[in-house]
């Protein structure tokens, strides 16, 4: 080995050690533990697929997995919403920076605070019910987080509320990279705003749309923190997501192998769906 190779590895060593311990080891060792009966109190033995059999026969996990798939419904809303927001703020109108900041504020707010604030909003005598009853959209106050069909959608809404600004910034950067002369040329040819958006902006943004959609799909499948701060899985376990089950089993009940088996199932879904998305969004590449 020559001198610069040694030097390079010395520079890299501390970072690589931490990555190995806290990023690669959890995946490797975790995958192994999912096939064992690991616990802190007795020696570990191999149990084959027992943990997977257990979770697939467990209502909480199955509901959780279904709910995680329901979460995917919000992906188109998030992406179309974020792209629309980016178009709305991609100009030099007075005060536009203030609006950009306002749309981004939910992103920089810690999830525990988000949970508390939306707990207030969704309260039976909260503002949301006040607005809806005043507008006569509902007759009586709705128990948003205590209704076992509504609670999941409320959590999805809050997840979306937290995520929109992040994707908006991604799209805004992509919009600003579209050369202005393309729009000018199209304007000279008599294309209106709508035509320019569909014929120029959208095709130019395709790579960003693909990346953001995949990230959004993965985020939806992996959602669980909002569940923890809003409902903790209730009412009647109706808002469990697959990873919330992993979190709940692993940390609250100390059933680590079960939790790891559940998270492996989520990972398989993530990889599969991400690959499908990429193929669907880039039909040219095979």
């Amino acid at each position, binding site marked *: 080995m020559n001198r610069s190779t040694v030097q390079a590895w010395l*520079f890299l060593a*501390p970072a690589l050690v931490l990555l190995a311990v806290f990023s690669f080891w959890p*995946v490797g060792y975790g995958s192994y533990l999912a096939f064992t009966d690991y616990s802190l109190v007795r020696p570990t033995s191999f149990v084959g697929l027992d943990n997977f059999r257990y979770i697939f026969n467990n209502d909480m996990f199955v509901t959780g997995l279904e709910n995680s798939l329901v979460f995917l419904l919000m992906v188109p809303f998030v992406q179309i919403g974020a792209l629309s927001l980016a178009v709305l703020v991609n100009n030099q109108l007075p005060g536009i920076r203030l609006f950009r900041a306002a749309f981004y504020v939910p992103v920089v707010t810690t999830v525990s605070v988000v949970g508390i604030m939306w707990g207030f*909003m969704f309260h039976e005598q909260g503002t949301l019910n006040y607005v809806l009853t005043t507008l006569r959209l509902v007759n009586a106050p709705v128990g948003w987080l205590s209704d076992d069909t509504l609670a999941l959608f409320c959590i999805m809404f809050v997840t979306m509320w937290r995520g929109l600004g992040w994707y908006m910034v991604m799209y805004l950067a992509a919009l600003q990279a579209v050369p202005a002369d393309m729009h000018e040329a199209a304007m000279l040819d008599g294309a209106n705003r709508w035509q320019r958006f569909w014929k120029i902006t959208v095709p130019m943004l395709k790579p960003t749309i693909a990346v953001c959609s995949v990230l959004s799909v993965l985020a939806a499948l992996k959602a669980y923190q909002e569940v923890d701060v809003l409902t903790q899985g209730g009412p009647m376990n109706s808002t469990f997501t697959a990873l919330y089950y992993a979190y709940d089993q692993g940390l609250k009940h100390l059933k680590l192998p079960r939790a790891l088996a559940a998270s492996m199932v989520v990972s398989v879904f993530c990889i599969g769906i991400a690959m499908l998305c990429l193929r669907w969004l880039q039909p040219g590449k095979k």
Partner: protein
Amino acid sequence: MNNRVSTALHYLALCAIALVCVFPFWWTVVTALSTEGNIFAFPPTFWPKSPSLVNFEEAFRVIPFFAFFKNSVLIAAFTVFWKLVLCSMAAYPLARLRFKGRQLVFGLILATMVLPSEVNFLVNFITVTKLSLVDTYAGVILPNVVTAVAILLLKQAFEEVPQDLIDAARVDGASEWIIFTRIMLPLVAPWLATVGILTAVEAWNEYIWPSIVMSRPDEFPLSVGVLYLRGTFGSSTRVIAAGTVLTVLPTLAAFLFTQRYFMRGMDGAVK
């Protein structure tokens, strides 16, 4: 005329969305400042009634706010410091040195971005326990210090430094370490600032992992402590609202003053 109408509609849409984004914060501030009236009254109040800071005083009294605050500050500061040191050290050879295994290392770092890292805490808790780092700042900080995004951003920054500067220093006999610390780091300072600010907010907001590592309430950062407040003193909504305001205020202030770094940091991460 048509133009004016469309501008008005544009602003109307912007205001409506901004209202949805900001209203929960506003409601919380109003509740924290008010001292009179039913909190969940119909119609709700959108302006503080007989405002005072008494709820904040109460929040300071019932939770060890200063301890939480200190913990949040220390966790954020240590995370930023070590992330900047270790990630820039890792990014420099990837950007500027030719060495065996470069592609492999780069591939490994990229791989961490697709690994299912959300559940790493399950095994990391075992690791941290075995290393006797439970209830320590090190336990909270270490898993978050090295991230692929930070390395990629800094690698890009290092790649933009002109090669002439490095060559000149080598001719003068400077070691790689001197080149790195005296030439490279000062030149990428704006990018270090970007990574630092993004990291500070992320570390401040981290909620799940510190709640796992820290078992005693006086060790909690604010993000965890504010929920502890809800759990323990569930009756007093106004005090919880006051605690919530105190928790978000530092991040919101940091964000508003450094907005451009957030917009730019994202931009770099996508490229």
